[in-house]
Structures are given as C-alpha cells and as structure tokens.
C-alpha cells in the first residue's frame, strides 16, 4: 500500500519539474503568416515560400542556441577504439549500494539494491557517438543510456542537491511534485515553467503522457518500481534508480553525487565537491572522537510507543560519528523498532541530549502538548532538545532531507556542536535548532 | 370490556403518500368471559386490527375503548397493565428459560431494577401452571416445541395480569392437538378469570365450534359480529368462505364438497357408519338422499357393503374398494 511504501522512504519527497524542452515555437509563426496573405494574389507565392521555409526550419528542430551548442560538443564525431573517453575516473569509497566500473568508451553502474528486496540493476552508460557493448553476460538486461544526458527528470528531492552542486540544474527538466522542494533555485525554475511536474500532488501518480511527450534522456527514480514505469520503458524512456537513501552512512549517501556525475559527464566537479565534503566530515569526526561521548536519546513517541533507530541505521552512525552514544547502539538492523515508553524511560531517562525528528515541534510547549510524559526525561528538563527542522520549505518539506543529503558535513557539524559545544564555538546551525523553552 | 367505535385502521399517510385504510367504520364489542374469535380470509386486515387494538399502531379514526376509557388516554405502563398480547413473531432470544421469559411479563408491575418480589414469583408460578407449562419452567425457550412455546408466550401475557389478552394467529404452525388444547385453554381463561380474549385464527371449523362470539371480516372489509350460529344462519359465513369446490354446511358446521354428483345415493347403515358412508359417496360424486328413489343404494349388511346400481348388485368388504368403485361409476 502507498502508505507503507512512502513511510519507508522518509527522505524521498517529490519535486515538480516546470521546464520541458519545447519545440512548438518554430511552428507557430508559419500558421499566422499564411492566414494574413490570403487577401492578395501577388503575395501568394511569397507566402508559400515563407511557409515552406518555416516548416523546414521547424523540422530541423532545436529549442535555442544553448542546447544546439551542447549537441555539437556532446557526441563523439569519430570513434577511436583505442581512446579512453573518460579522462577523470571516479572511485567509490563510502557508498556500498552501487559500483562503477570503466571501459574505454562506456561505464557500467550496478545498483545493488534499488529498493528493499529488489534485484540489482545494471546500467551501461555509453559515451554518445561510440558503439554500445554487446548485451551479453552481466550486461544482458542492462539499461543503455547515452551520456552525457542532456535532459533528465528526477523523482526525489534528495536528488536535487547533487544536480545543483554539479552545476547541471539547467538540464533538470522535470520533477515528480514540487510541493515539498526547499531549494529556492529549483522552485524558481518550477515557477518559471522551466521544470515541469510530471506526477500528481502526492508524487505517486505519474502522468505518463507528459513524460513520454517530454522525452527526457533519463528518468531518475528513487528505486521503487511502479507499474507506470513499465509503460514508460515500453515507450523507450530510460529509467535509472538513484537509490542513495538505501545507504546507511551519511558519506555513502552523499557519494551518490558521483552517480549523477556519471550520467551528466561532470566527473571532475563531482570529485571536487565530494572530496571537500568528505574531508570536512572526516575532520569533524576525528575531532569528536577525542571528546568524551555524550549520551543521546533519538526519536520520539506516539501513543506511548517510541520509535528507536537500530544500531546499524543512518541515525545511529551519525550519532556515533558525532561523538555521541545511545542506549541501543549495539542492536542490529538498519530500521527502527517500536519500543514501549517504559523501556525507553528505564534505559535513556538520563540521556543528556534529546534529538527528536518532528517537523512540527518548535518549542518545549509543543512537546508537552503532544505528551506530558516527555517531562520525565532529563534532556527535557535541561532544555537540551534539538530538532532538525530549522529549514523548512514553503510546502512543508524539510531541507535536512534535501540539501542535507548532499552535505553530511553540515549535519555532522551541527551534531558535534550540539553534543560538544566546546569543540565548535560560534557555530551557526544549518539544520538543527534548539526547541524554545 | 373492549369496544370499537367507528374505528378505522390502516397505515398513516406520509409525504406524497396518502393514508392507506385497511378497515373503516368498525363497531364491535368483546365482553369479559367471552372467547371472541376474529376470522376472515387472508389479507382482510385481521393483524392490522389486532395491532391497533394492542396499541402498536395508531387508529386512523375512531376509538378503541377499554372499560370505557380510550386506550390512547392511558400511558404505556397503564395500558400494559390492562392489555397483553401474543404476536406472530417467532424469534425468541437464546439463553432464557421459560420461567425467565414469563417473568418478563411482570415488566409493568416491577420497580426500577425489574427485581421480582415474592408476589411476582407467585404470579409467574400461577401463569405457568394455568397454561400447563409449569414443567417447562427451566427449559431454554429455544428448545421448546411450537406448542410449548405458544403456551409459554401465553403465560407471559398472563403474567402481565391484564384484563384483555389479544392473540394474533397463535394456532398457526401448531398441530391439531396443540391447536385444540390452546383454544380450550383460552376459553377456560376467559371464563375463569373474566378476561376479554380476542384471538384471530384461520382454523374456521374450530373457531365456529369453540368461540362465544365471532368477529368476521368479510372480503369487502365489513365487520360482522355475532355468535357462530347466528353468522351461519344469516349466511355470512357462507358468503365469506364458500368456494367452488366446498361449501359450508350449517348443520354439521363443516365444509362439504358440492353435492353436484352423478346421481343420488341412499345409504342404509347404523348411526356411526351412515354419515361416514354418505361423506365418502359425496366425495366420490354421489349426492346422498335420505328418502325416496336413488340411483345408487348402499347397505351395510353387518359384514360387507352391498351396492346396487341399475339392478346390479356389487359386494365390497372394504370401504376403500366401495369408494373407488363408486368413483369409477360416477365417472363412467
């Protein structure tokens, strides 16, 4: 059911995509011209010539000079079998859910688990203008995509920071639903109709006609396969799974920028961006490691049941990297478990810091209204309650799940500043804010 | 005493639907001590009338008076203390014993919690005893037979200590002995307790035999009141119930086949045998003529039946053979 499906994908929020590559501009003037010249006999042959010319012009296509130029540089004119077409090679060090290997003129990307329990998917990213390899062996069922892609659609807000940081935002032509996007640049482009929204307001129902009509070079999904995707595949749309949310480490998730780079041909930029982020992250982690670990209480409860992240989950690793510890750090699993309030009280009542994940809580009064029993916790009493809802988009989307995906260093900085304020004096918080008293 | 004054019964009108009158202008009286039986062909409105008398449906016009006061003037509890009913509903709750069911009849007399005092228990005991259901007291009602169930429901009605009991087709679904027993019981109750008892039934012959008063609703919707003999004599019964094949015979008080036989027959036999032979021959198609010439003469010789027709004599040892032959003769 949709409910569970979406609940599991908390960071996945939909984006709208206003701009589509249009071709109609060339056609219109012709029609306008022919109606005016009906009146005089002398203008008749002239009109016919005009019509013919404009029809020819429209048949050639092209939606502006930018993509015209890109088209000229994009594809290889003469294929040289001995040339290595990938001068910058990316290596994947932190992400565990995809692999990237290079051949001379194509890359092979395998996403191990696009969705929980799903089979691995392989993509062959062939440099445009070069021949694709034979579809045999492990490449048998692979999706072949010509790179670098000119236009792409993205289904999840978590993909947006990668696209923006790589500087290829102009190639983004469609998002599923724009409601929860926080990035002002993307929202601007949506409003200006440069990016279209190809699904309904919930982001679930894909308007296949829109997608097929727009013909993006590639459609990036978050890994979940819906029946509409098959329709799109049948129509020749290339669908790839950008399943960064399946990673359990923050750096692993951020490293998926390299996936988008492999598609768009911006490997150099990706390496630059990611190396900076990784370096900052690791420096922070090293600093935090030297301090005394601080006890943390993650999550919050509803109807007396507390959702506690398991020991191998994303949140657990972040807490560990930030120099924190929590009572369930040695449990197994990457999801969360529903625990009784009693258990949480007995094990974590005296945790120093509480990190709930509620978009709606701005003050401790909000917390008390939700359930007065939170007051039993030491962290509540001392006021050390921080939620990551500092930046919320106009549609209610949380930037922690958008920009935060690409910038785990900023998240870690916030966390280290919360747990060890003495290590980060004068820090400005990006995503986290302390709840007001 | 239960009186009907210009009573019209039926279903009240709603928006866009006019009132449906089932019966109108009814005038009748049911006296205490009488067993009043309500008869009439199907669809004439017997149930509607009884429901109106019980207060379950409002009268469209006119009044129902109980001991002089209209029943609409009584509040529900007071009415419940005066009138009790036995309805046609057959759904009984599980897990109630006959005694508990009878005890429900004390409802208008008990206090707020419904607790039964010793006096209430005495009434229940009496009700069960008088209906012959005392031995069933601790059996669950869903395990009782139809006849037993009707007794218990009657006991429940009696437990209300009413002055009038109305019963809607209580003998439907009962076998003949139970039917007879129930009607006998009702008659006895009417007499011994001076109750007004109004029963509706389809069993015409039993009704005419046992009722003190008959209320007959004819197919035209008119109500005729009188003793069974009065209504038989003035032809009302015949007019309402005679059919193509059967007619009501006043003398015997039963339905007989039409005497349009092949011919006449004269029967010579003793007192018991003669009417039975006549009945069998009527069924076979020979109309009995007690005196005078007849087409067929049947005599019981003491050992066998002798039948003479057209001068030919036939001898039969069994009544069945005689009857079959007579039928065969009639169809020749």
């Amino acid at each position, binding site marked *: 059911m949709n409910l569970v499906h979406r*609940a599991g994908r908390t960071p996945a929020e939909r984006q709208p995509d206003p701009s589509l590559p249009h071709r109609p501009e060339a056609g219109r003037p012709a029609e306008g011209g022919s109606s005016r010249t009906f009146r005089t006999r002398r203008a008749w042959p002239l009109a016919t010539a005009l019509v013919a010319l404009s029809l020819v012009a429209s048949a050639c296509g092209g939606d502006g000079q930018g993509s015209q130029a890109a088209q000229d540089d994009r594809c290889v004119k003469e294929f040289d079998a001995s040339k290595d077409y990938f001068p910058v090679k990316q290596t994947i060090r932190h992400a565990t859910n995809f692999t990237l290997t290079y051949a001379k003129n194509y890359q092979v990307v395998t996403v191990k688990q696009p969705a929980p329990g799903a089979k691995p998917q392989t993509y062959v990213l062939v440099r445009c203008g070069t021949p694709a390899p034979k579809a045999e062996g492990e490449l048998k069922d692979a999706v072949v995509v010509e790179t670098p892609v000119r236009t792409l659609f993205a289904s999840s807000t978590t993909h947006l920071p990668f696209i923006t940081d790589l500087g290829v935002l102009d190639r983004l032509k469609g998002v599923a639903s724009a409601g929860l996007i926080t990035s002002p640049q993307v929202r601007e482009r949506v409003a200006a109709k440069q990016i279209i929204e190809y699904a309904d307001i919930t982001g679930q129902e894909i308007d296949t006609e829109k997608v097929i009509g727009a013909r993006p070079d590639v459609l990036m999904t978050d890994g979940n396969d819906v029946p509409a995707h098959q329709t799109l595949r049948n129509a020749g749309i290339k669908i790839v799974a950008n399943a960064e949310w399946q990673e359990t480490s923050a750096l692993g998730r951020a490293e998926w920028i390299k996936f988008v780079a492999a598609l768009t041909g911006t490997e150099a930029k990706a390496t630059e961006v990611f190396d900076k982020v990784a370096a900052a992250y690791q420096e922070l982690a090293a600093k935090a490691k030297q301090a005394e670990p601080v006890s943390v209480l993650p999550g919050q409860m509803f109807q*007396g049941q507390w959702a506690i992240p398991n020991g191998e989950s994303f949140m657990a690793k972040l807490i560990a990297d930030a120099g924190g510890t929590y009572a369930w750090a040695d449990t197994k699993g990457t999801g969360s478990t529903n625990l009784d309030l009693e258990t949480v009280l007995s094990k974590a009542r005296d945790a120093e810091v509480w990190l709930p994940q509620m978009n709606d809580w701005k003050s401790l009064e909000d917390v008390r209204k939700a359930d007065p029993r939170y007051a039993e916790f030491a962290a509540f009493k001392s006021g050390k309650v921080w939620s990551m809802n500092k930046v919320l988009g106009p549609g209610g989307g949380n930037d922690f799940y958008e920009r935060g995906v690409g910038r785990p260093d900023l998240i870690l900085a916030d966390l280290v500043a919360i747990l060890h304020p003495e290590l980060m004096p004068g820090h400005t918080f990006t995503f986290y804010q302390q709840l007001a008293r | 005493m239960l009186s009907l004054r210009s009573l019209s019964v039926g279903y009240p009108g709603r928006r866009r639907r006019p009132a449906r009158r089932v019966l109108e202008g009814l005038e009748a009286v049911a006296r205490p001590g009488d067993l009043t039986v309500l008869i009439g062909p199907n669809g004439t409105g017997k149930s509607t009338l009884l429901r109106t008398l019980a207060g379950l449906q409002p009268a469209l016009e006119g009044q129902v008076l109980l001991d002089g006061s209209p029943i609409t003037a009584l509040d529900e509890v007071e009415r419940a203390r005066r009138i009790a009913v036995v309805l046609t509903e057959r759904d009984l709750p599980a897990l109630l014993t006959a005694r508990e069911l009878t005890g429900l009849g004390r409802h208008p007399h008990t206090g707020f919690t419904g607790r039964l005092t010793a006096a209430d228990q005495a009434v229940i005991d009496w009700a069960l005893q008088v209906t012959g259901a005392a031995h069933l007291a601790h059996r669950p009602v869903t395990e009782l037979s139809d006849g037993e169930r009707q007794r218990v429901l009657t006991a429940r009605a009696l437990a209300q200590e009413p002055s009038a009991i109305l019963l809607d087709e209580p003998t439907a679904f009962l076998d003949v002995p139970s039917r007879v027993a129930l009607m006998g019981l009702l008659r006895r109750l009417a007499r011994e307790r001076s109750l007004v008892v109004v029963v509706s039934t389809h069993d015409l012959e039993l009704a005419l035999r046992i009722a003190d008063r008959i209320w007959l609703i004819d197919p035209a919707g008119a109500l005729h009141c009188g003793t069974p003999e009065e209504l038989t004599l003035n032809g009302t019964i015949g007019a309402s119930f005679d059919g193509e094949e059967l007619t009501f015979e006043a003398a015997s008080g039963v339905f007989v086949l039409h005497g349009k036989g092949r011919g006449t027959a004269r029967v010579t036999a003793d007192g018991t045998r003669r009417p039975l032979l006549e009945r069998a021959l009527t069924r076979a198609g020979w109309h009995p003529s007690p005196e005078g010439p007849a087409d067929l003469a049947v005599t019981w010789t003491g050992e066998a039946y002798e039948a003479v027709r057209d001068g030919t004599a036939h001898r039969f040892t069994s009544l069945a053979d005689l009857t079959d032959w007579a039928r065969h003769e009639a169809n020749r």
Partner: protein
Amino acid sequence: MTEPAFAPAARRRTAVMAVLAAAVAVSFVLAVALGSTTIPLDQAVAALLRLENADPGAQTIIWTVRLPRAITALLAGAALSVAGVQMQTLFRNPLAEPYILGVSSGASLGVALVVTGWGGLASAFTGGVAGLGRAGIVVAASAGAAAVLGLVLALSRRVRSVVTLLIIGVMVGSTTASLITLLLAYSDAQRAQQYLGWSLGSYSGTTWGDLALFTPVCTAALAAALMGVKPLNAMLLGENYARTMGVRVRRVRTATLLTASVLAGSVTAYCGPVAFLGLAVPHMAKLLLGTADHRVLMPASVLLGGAVSLVCCIATQAPGSGAVLPLNAVTTVLGAPVVIAVLLRSRAAQTGWAG
C-alpha cells in the same frame, strides 16, 4: 432473579460473578507488576505505595506508564463490553458491536483531519499534531464521534425499523473510511504514519490528565447503561412486545444509542479504535452465566470486559525485548479463537438467536 425452586442457576451466577471480580483484581495487579522492563515485585509494591525506599526509576515507570495504562485498559474493556451488550440487544443481532453505527469511523475521521492538517492541499497549513497536541486528537475524535452520533440519533427518530438504522451505520462507516483514505493519500509520510499508529489502538497513550476526564465520563456512561437493564430485558423480545409491556421504545432506543456511543466514542478518543472486545465479551459473558438476563449480564460484562482487556494489555508488552505489539492485533488474535471455541462447545449458543 432469586428462584427458590432452582438454586443451582442462581448459585452458578454468583460463583461466576465472584470469579470475574477476582479475575479483574488479579489481572490489574499483573498489569502493574509486569511490563517490558523487569521490576521485582517488592520494588513494584514499594513504588506503588510511594514508600521512602522506593527506587525512583521504578516509581516513574509504575506511576507514569503502568498505572495509567492499567486503569485505561480496565475502563476501556468495561465500556466497550457494555456497549456491545447494548448494541446486540437493541439490534437483536449477535454480530452487532459498539462501532456498528459508525461511531469509531467518525472519531477516526476527526483524528485523520487533525493529524494531516486538513491534507497537504493547503501547503501553508502545517498544523498537524503540534498545533493542538494530544488534546487536539482527543477533541477531534470526540467531535467526530459526536457528529456521527447526532446523525444517527436524528435518523433514528425518522426511521421505524432498527435494521434500517444498522444499514445506515454501516454506510456511514464506509463513507468515512473512504474520506480518510483520501486524506491520507494527500499527506506526507510522517503524518500518514501517525494516523496509522493511532488506528492500531493503544492503552499506553493516556496520561493522568487524560484520565481525569476519561474516568468520570466513562463511569457516568457505565452507570447510565446499568440503569437501563430493565427496558433492555424487555427489548429481548423485540420492540413490538416491549411496547406492549409498557416500554417507551423510542426513548429507550435513544438513551441506549446515546450511552453506547458515549462509551464507544470516549474509548476511541483516548485509545484509538479497539477491535473485537465489544463483540466477543458479551458472548463470553452470556455463555459463562448461561442467561441473557441483563440484570446479571451487564455487571458481568463490566467485570469480564475489564479482565479481558487487562490481559490483552499485558500481552502487548512482549516481556524482555521492549518491543510492543499493536493492541488491535492482540485483541483479535486472542479473542477470535476463544469465541469460536466457546461457540463450538456450547449447545445453547448453537441454537443461536433465532427461534
């Protein structure tokens, strides 16, 4: 009903009531003594009595978590069972239960509206739970239940047959369920998950503040229901017979619907929709007592309902691991086989409701 002629039946009933009372006491004690964390009995007692040497951790757990939960379970079980008896008698239907008129659907719709902040359509509205908190949920659930109750009562005056009312209730339930699905489809995952969690039912969400309101409302409604035993007994034979026995049928119908809905609605407001108790406990009580007489059936349902509910509450805390099972799963899994087994064994129930 004291019947000198048949003492064994009366003795059976007294014995059953005594056993039920004991069962309630024992299960209440167990609900306080057991939980996902192990607290030794002596410490539990000390914490309960707030002795000086009591461990503060144990005190917090006993007083903030276990006691409110146990009291809620007791009240909710009693309330739903009594409401179930009323519905089964009023509608003369063994499958009737407190939610049959759509009361819990109305409450669910109210909660869905609050939790989703009227849906994601008005993107600026980020109300949700935070704006109103738990009080918001309770108020919304009560308002939803009251709205449905009002509708049903208004219709019951115009509708002659009680079966029509039943069908209307089922239709109301279906309609609200569709509306809720619609609301959830247009909200984000976090909100939808909140609603889902609520709809699984829980006794752990009530605090002492909640109980300050829930207890008097529930007890008052229970008392009102118990006052109606006499007319309910008459209604066993159906509305026609009841009317001829002096029962003011319209009034009794309204009063019964009102108390049953307040009972069911208040439980739903604080605990979410709790499945199955209102359906199963009346049957269990009838079979234990061997009678349908409401004068014993109602008090027995109060006790049995409380005891069964407390047992379900204990069963939701899988001891040791701290993980919690959803309440509705437990009530159904525990209750359904019991009822089936009891029905198969009992002859009285086999003859069923009809004659």
